[in-house]
């Protein structure tokens, strides 16, 4: 009795959590639609004994599997950090995007092989049933395309100061996304041409930090504070949610597949060109492969702890500056990596003169490195060590433990 109650409350809780999040609601609705349609198709195929409908139903099964994967990922994304996941669940998003992209690449390969086989052997197609079903599938997938068209784009891009100052004067809140994207591209080009990252970032310091609105139109006006609500996207990284990108590509591929089926059935009816079907499927699988490949590369890079060159360049410069801090002899080890599109993590090991105050040097080193502006203070660890000329410290330890001296506690 009690166990059942616990399960009911658990499911209710999970359901509420699903509904509260924008992304997971969309995926959930679409998954339910797909499951219903899949069962309908299975029944219809069984009753009418057609192979093509069965294969199409299995195709929908694949979709449901990938949608389920995306749903789980979006559900777990918002969890806070744990004992198990000390950095949080950010990576799950990338993994699901990667998985979806590989799924799609595999599907494209398989479709190509089947199409080549179909060139040789001619399959008879039940045109009537298939047309109806494929049109319905197309409708559903088109609905899905418009559902996920946003692609989780609720993050703000970081912007250099010159643009932001002008916009602060104008206070135009309702800029279109295209303009902001073009500006971002221009900014990227200007960044790369001028080699002036640190100057721009110093200018960023001057600009005021107002609380930013959640609407997507307030794009490059203001820089967000470092809160969870409005995270800043790192330069060189993608601004969209990778999970939803993967699902969007999946839905797109389905839509294109059903378009191909519709076209081929119509042409087969009219002219009897049986070779159109495999040709369309080959063309569309090539298109899917080309469109999905960047997503797989992007997510795989993040998995490998990649740092985009602009950030690593800035970091190296910051470390070179940190070596000029009074008291610092050398920075022996520095590591930087990207956790997700918005979070940077770094570690630095500093060697410091013997006669220095550790805390002050630590603070100064931290401030120089945080100049890159994309470090939250929690994510940067700076280890400071005094230079050991000989094994003096080690000998001290030995002496103390051997003779039981506890003086210098």
């Amino acid at each position, binding site marked *: 009795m009690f166990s059942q109650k616990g399960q009911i409350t658990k499911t209710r809780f999970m359901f509420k959590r699903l509904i509260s999040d924008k992304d997971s609601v969309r995926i959930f609705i679409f998954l339910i639609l797909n499951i219903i349609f899949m069962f309908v198709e299975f029944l219809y195929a069984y009753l009418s004994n057609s*192979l093509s409908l*069965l*294969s199409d139903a*299995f195709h929908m099964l694949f979709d449901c*599997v990938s949608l389920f994967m995306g749903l789980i990922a979006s559900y777990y994304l918002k969890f806070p950090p*744990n*004992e*198990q*996941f*000390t*950095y949080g669940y950010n*990576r799950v998003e990338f*993994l699901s995007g990667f998985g979806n992209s*590989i799924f799609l690449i*595999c*599907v494209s*390969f398989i479709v190509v*092989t089947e199409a*080549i*086989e179909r060139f040789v052997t001619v399959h008879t197609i039940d045109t009537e049933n298939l047309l109806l079903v494929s049109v319905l599938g197309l409708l559903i997938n088109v609905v899905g395309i418009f559902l996920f068209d946003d692609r989780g784009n609720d993050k703000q891009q970081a912007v250099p100061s010159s643009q932001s100052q002008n916009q602060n004067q104008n206070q135009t809140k309702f800029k279109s996304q295209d303009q902001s994207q073009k500006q971002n591209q221009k900014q990227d080009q200007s960044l*790369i041409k001028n080699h002036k990252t640190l100057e721009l970032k110093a200018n960023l*310091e001057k600009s005021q930090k107002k609380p930013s609105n959640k609407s997507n139109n307030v794009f490059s006006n203001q820089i967000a504070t470092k809160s969870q609500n409005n995270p800043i996207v790192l330069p060189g990284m993608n601004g969209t949610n990778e999970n939803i990108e993967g699902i969007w590509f999946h839905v797109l591929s389905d839509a294109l597949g059903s378009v191909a089926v519709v076209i081929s059935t119509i042409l087969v009816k009219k002219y009897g060109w049986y070779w159109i079907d495999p040709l369309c499927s080959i063309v569309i699988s090539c298109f899917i492969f080309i469109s999905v490949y960047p997503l797989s590369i992007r997510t*795989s890079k993040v*998995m*490998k*702890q990649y740092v985009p*060159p602009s950030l690593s360049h800035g970091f*190296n410069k910051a470390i070179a*500056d940190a070596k000029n801090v*009074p*008291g610092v002899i*050398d920075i*022996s*080890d520095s590591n930087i*990596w990207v956790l997700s599109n918005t979070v940077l993590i770094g570690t630095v090991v500093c060697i410091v003169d013997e*006669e*220095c*105050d*550790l805390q*002050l040097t*630590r*603070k*100064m080193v*931290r*401030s120089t490195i*945080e100049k890159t*502006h994309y470090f939250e203070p929690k994510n940067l*660890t*700076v*280890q*400071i*060590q*005094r*230079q*050991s000329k000989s094994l003096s*410290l*080690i000998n001290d*330890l030995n002496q*103390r433990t051997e003779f039981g001296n506890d003086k*210098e506690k």
Partner: protein
Amino acid sequence: MLDDLGFKSYETRPRQYKNLTLQTQISKIFSTIMKHSDTRRIFLFFLINLSFMFVEFLYSILSDSLTLLSDSFHMLFDCISLFAGLFASYVSKLPRNSNYTYGYSRIEPLSGFANSIFLVCVGLLILRESIERLIISVTVKTERLFVVSIIGLVINLIGMYLFRDRTAETKKSSKTKKNPNESNNDVESGKFSGDNGDQFNKRSGDNDSTSIGIKNYVNFDRHMIQNKEIEKVKEKNKKVVNDNLEGIWFHVLSDTLGSVVVIISTIFIDNLQWYWVDSFCSLILSLVIIVSVLPLLIRTFRLLAHKQDPALNANIQNTINKLILKYHCSIVDYKSWVIANNEMVITIHLSAQKNSKKEQIIQLIKQSLQNEYQVKKENITIQIQYFDSHLQNLSNNFNSTTYEYDSNVNSNNKINNNYFNNKNQQNQINSLIFRKLPQKQFTSIGVSVNNHLENWI
């Protein structure tokens, strides 16, 4: 996007063999492939598969059979996946970069993940075909399938033999960026790193130990719970599995099982004409593939998503807390993650009192973690901060809070290259930074006086 195109202004990643001719590049790549056993085996198998694929393709065109053509396309996909595996294992040997500061070793579990997803896909496909054939019975043609499947079986058995040993290579801890402070300790602690079993036996025979104190402290606990520790040692001495090779192994396994299924079904069809055997066996095959690949998928997923064993984390935190109790410190923040092959990276934020010996703490923690949990010293970074109320006046110059994480990056970033606005403040702070610490020459009274003075400043 623009970064991916490789604009040279930010090109800090050194292309491996940029300025050499193509011949020398290829020869160098070839030599590195031949050096390591992983890449050697994958390359061999790739060549075998490629050659048989071409042979089969030609034969299918000459003899005009569809089954041979489809089989050659399957071999093509195997070759592609093998090439991806080869690429992954080659790239994992590359040295560190400014863009990949921990090296490329994480590409191996990534390729294992990709392979497992691919195999799940293939399994679902076979499931689909088998169910279709069960519901709507289709007659299978068995012309020349027998010979082809036997050849495929032989090739895949060769592959199974090649990949029977899927352990990861043990890297010697040699970093390109060396830490001169820690190299001294490494020389001495090198004796402890591999000899976990001997710690039970060795007592005071070690003269040059940085960690005699630690050892006594640690062994006290160990004597209490000896059996569990022995089990732990046995676990640590287990070999680590290379996920890339695992993925290829499962691929090869699925191919062998597929050819076995084809052989069985052809035997049954030729002799007894039971057409359902084919679909039934392929259904079982698909289930076997999916079930066998799931552990790899889950394991690589957890690694790539930074999931750890909470018991291990709790143990590590307990050991650190025990060591730190003496010095009245506590852990403020603990984070860890795993690079491939059980190589852990730990970052710790400690809060300490002002007069505690920070180097001792750092070295104690690092040594104990290396000895017990085999975490490399270079992968541990410890930040020590302390609550200093007496520096609050000065902190206003920095415009930062003294406690916790130097938050309000705003205020910190007002520190420009000069770091200070006034020269007076600069002089004050310079004098503070370069003040002298109490030395051994002082007596105990002198030490206490100096400490009081520090409190006043």
